[in-house]
């Protein structure tokens, strides 16, 4: 705007300060733009994940397995924090436990274990997850593999523990003795190509055998919805993952399945699939960051899950599927590079 002065502004209030006050203030900060930022912080994100996990935990602890579920989860979270603390002390690194990512790892690890797991086993898993998988690579953001899942798989070291699950709604002792009546999980039946002995409603609400935190499909979805609404996670990975599993199990059910739709729903709700798709495949650190990379990753998780569930000898497919896809994440990012603005116009745009 050029030199045409507008009307003089109204008289200024008296509060006006001396000229000196406009001089350079005592201490200024200089930094690169931007000088404003959104509210998100690492700790808030982790806290949101923890909040999202709470419904499933409360269900397990107050209704399904009893307080032992809380204790196992607390032990696991505390163990992860302690190992991270000790590792940082030992290697003289800045303390990082404040970001709460270790708590998320601890809680998620506990969620994947049978609720009657001895406490020392939990701590072995914590050690592996935090020290070997996460901190050895440099801590948060640097690990290439999901610590909680890797910790769980390492606990296959104790197959006896890892392949027996408490019965439905068996109220567990707090003590460390394993006294569970081990019961078949829906996964075992699916693995043999049979429909589990639970109704779909039971599966959905969570009246079925399984690991500590994976039993209630409904509450896991609730947690997922919370994360999506809070914009902690995006839908891309879970939708690609679950979608692939759904399509494959609908169109290629095993011989002898009468109703493919029912089979598909059982597949979706059993095992750790929902827990994995919502909370674990979405772990930022170990998944691709590009949009297309995330699509490949989600679809890859789905394909591998169905493949391993069908042909693998472990009854579990989700953990391995995610771990293997973790290993591919970096490659997916390279293949899934976005097309920057203004590069190679698409034909439609060129025609316009």
């Amino acid at each position: 705007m050029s030199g045409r002065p507008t009307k003089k502004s109204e008289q200024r209030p008296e509060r006006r300060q001396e000229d000196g006050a406009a001089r350079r203030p005592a201490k200024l900060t200089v930094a690169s733009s931007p000088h404003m930022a959104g509210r998100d912080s690492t700790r808030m994100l982790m806290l949101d994940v923890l909040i999202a996990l709470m419904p499933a935990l409360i269900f397990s602890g107050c209704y399904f397995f009893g307080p032992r579920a809380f204790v196992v989860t607390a032990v696991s979270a505390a163990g992860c924090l302690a190992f991270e603390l000790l590792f940082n002390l030992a290697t003289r690194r800045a303390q990082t436990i404040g970001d709460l990512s270790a708590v998320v790892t601890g809680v998620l690890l506990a969620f994947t274990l049978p609720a009657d797991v001895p406490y020392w086993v939990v701590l072995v898993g914590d050690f592996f997850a935090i020290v070997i998988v996460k901190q050895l690579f440099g801590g948060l953001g640097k690990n290439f593999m999901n610590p909680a899942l890797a910790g769980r798989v390492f606990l296959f070291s104790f197959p006896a523990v890892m392949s027996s699950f408490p019965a439905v709604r068996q109220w567990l002792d707090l003590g460390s003795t394993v006294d569970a009546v081990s019961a078949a999980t829906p996964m075992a039946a699916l693995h043999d190509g049979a429909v589990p002995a639970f109704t779909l409603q039971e599966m959905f609400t969570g009246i079925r055998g399984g690991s500590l935190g994976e039993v209630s499909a409904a509450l896991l979805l609730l947690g997922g919805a919370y994360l999506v609404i809070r914009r902690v996670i995006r839908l891309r990975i879970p939708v690609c993952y679950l979608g692939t599993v759904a399509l494959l199990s609908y169109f290629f059910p095993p011989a002898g399945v009468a109703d493919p739709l029912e089979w598909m729903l059982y597949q979706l709700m059993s095992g750790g699939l929902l827990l994995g798709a919502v909370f674990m495949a979405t772990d930022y650190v170990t998944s691709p960051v590009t949009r297309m990379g995330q699509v490949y990753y989600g679809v890859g998780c789905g394909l591998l899950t169905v493949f391993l569930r069908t042909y693998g000898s472990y009854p579990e497919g989700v953990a391995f599927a995610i771990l293997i896809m973790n290993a591919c994440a970096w490659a997916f990012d390279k293949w899934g590079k976005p097309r920057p603005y203004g590069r190679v116009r698409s034909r439609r745009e060129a025609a316009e």
Partner: protein
Amino acid sequence: MEPGKVAQIFKNGLVLQNPTLVLLLGMCSTLAVTTSLKNAVCMGLSTTAVLLCSNLVISLLRHWIPKQIRIACYVVVVASFVTIVDLLLQAYLPALSESLGIFIPLIVVNCIILARAEAFASKHTPGYAAMDGLAMGLGFTASLSILGVVRELLGSGTLWGVSVLGEGFQPMLLVVAPCGGFIVLGCVIAAAQWARSLAERRGKT
């Protein structure tokens, strides 16, 4: 032979240029056979025997072998000794031979052997070459044994097949699985590097 040089050769083989922990050679057998101490020691000694003999022979032949076919010649020499060791093991230690399996013939391609043939035996007199073979072999055996001890203890709760950690101990199967092999080896090498840097720092101040 000068004792100083022999001492140096042994120091190199066992510590400074330890084939597994420093030169990072012969990884396949290192990882595959260290699920138990017994296997590790036996593999180490078999390799030592082959290394000793092949170094000796290659050093003897070093002036006769033209460059163009030296690899082929080395390979034949090594493979013959390996076969002999294999046959002897089969005949006299059948159980061990079973558990080491395909990794005995694979000593042929254990990178240590060809590396020593190339780097040492082909340039030194037979006496030193044999010493080098022995030293390297023992260094290999030593590091294999370390791995074997760690993996057998954690993975099976035993040592040389004897239960040592008591009833309560639950072995960690994955330590003796392939993944455990890689990870334990990584940790042992890291420990070696750490010790070395510690020693260096000591040396400086």
